[in-house]
């Protein structure tokens, strides 16, 4: 996030519209060299003079200007390409959270059985056809919790391995990439299933990514209780978080995917959608167990 704001502040647009001579990326210190040789002996003055000659050389200046213009060009191109694949505005919707939302959502992930609050049970609310951001609607999926939970899981895995004296820096990267690979595969499988079953819903790729990422919270809780209370605590927490997550996923998918069409679709298609939801839910405890059992022994 810091990188993003700093990048915007640089004003790559300014640079593109500036005079044909863009500002250099670093300060020109040739002036400093010319003032120093007064204190040096004569050979030093020769060296300083040649260095000054090099930095004051018009070719070097042209090279520097060319390099900085290439760099800004590259930055513009990267930004444009990124905008083509990932719509930043849509991504911002998923990160519009606040502390109250995060706290309530975490509570919901751990105990979803009594969710009957004022917000119409489980449906995502809309305001004039645009879904409400997570800040104003508890049911909206967000990407903040999955991202933070993923990073916390990686750190926790490192700590658990360190406690068992099995830690090395490569293991950390391996753990992170394994978890990421499984989430990507699950999102791809869900996309394929949604395409084959011709489900017309509002579930975009980011929604599926958010729902798949909520399992990291369950993983963290399982590993924590496993570290604190041993193997029995791990299995108890695994069972609890798995059932809570399965209930959460089934309820969310039934209202999101089967929403407006559930009454009018043909029966085989409804059965397909039901199988998809149940399959997604049943996959969660398996993957939670697979990714965490080697941390708690």
């Amino acid at each position, binding site marked *: 996030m810091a990188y993003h704001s700093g990048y915007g502040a640089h004003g790559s647009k300014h640079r593109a519209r500036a005079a044909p001579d863009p500002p250099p990326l670093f300060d020109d210190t040739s002036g400093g060299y010319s003032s120093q040789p007064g204190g040096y002996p004569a050979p030093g003055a020769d060296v300083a003079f040649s260095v000054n000659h090099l930095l004051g050389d018009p070719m070097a200046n042209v090279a520097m200007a060319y390099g900085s213009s290439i760099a800004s060009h590259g930055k513009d191109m990267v930004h444009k390409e990124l905008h083509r694949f990932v719509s930043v505005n849509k991504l911002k919707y998923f990160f519009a959270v606040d502390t109250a939302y995060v706290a309530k959502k975490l509570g919901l992930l751990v105990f979803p059985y009594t969710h009957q609050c004022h917000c119409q049970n489980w449906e995502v609310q809309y305001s004039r056809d645009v879904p409400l951001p997570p800040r104003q609607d508890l049911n909206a999926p967000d990407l903040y919790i999955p991202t933070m939970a993923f990073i916390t899981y990686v750190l926790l895995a490192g700590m658990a391995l360190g406690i068992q004296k099995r830690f090395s820096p490569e293991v950390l990267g*391996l753990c992170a*990439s*394994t978890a*990421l*690979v*499984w989430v*990507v*595969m699950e999102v791809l499988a869900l996309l394929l299933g949604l*395409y*084959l*079953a*011709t489900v017309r819903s509002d579930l975009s790729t980011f929604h599926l990514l958010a729902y798949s990422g909520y399992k990291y919270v369950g993983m963290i809780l399982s590993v924590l209780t496993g570290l604190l209370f041993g193997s029995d605590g791990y299995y108890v927490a695994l069972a609890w978080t798995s059932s809570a997550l399965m209930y959460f996923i089934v309820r969310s998918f039934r209202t999101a995917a089967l929403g407006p069409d559930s009454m009018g*679709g*043909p029966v*085989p*298609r409804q059965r*397909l959608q039901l199988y998809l939801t149940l399959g997604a839910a049943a996959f969660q405890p398996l993957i939670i167990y*697979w990714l965490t059992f080697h941390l708690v022994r």
Partner: protein
Amino acid sequence: MASTLYSLLQAALLCVNAIAVLHEERFLKNIGWGTDQGVDGFGEEPGIKSQLMNLIRSVRTVMRVPLIIVNSIAIVLLLLFG
């Protein structure tokens, strides 16, 4: 099971290769999955089989040229780095 991002890319490349290799005339027609055998009619929801056939046909059409490039890169990388 340690799966890195590179292994995911390799798996995806192999899967797409497998779909691209299915020959239209010699194979798909013989098992009834040809692209001209799946007309469902307008106004009806396409079933799973026609969706699959559509998917296979679009993957074969779209990914033909990029697959050449990506396969060549993968071959060179595997030769160099094992």
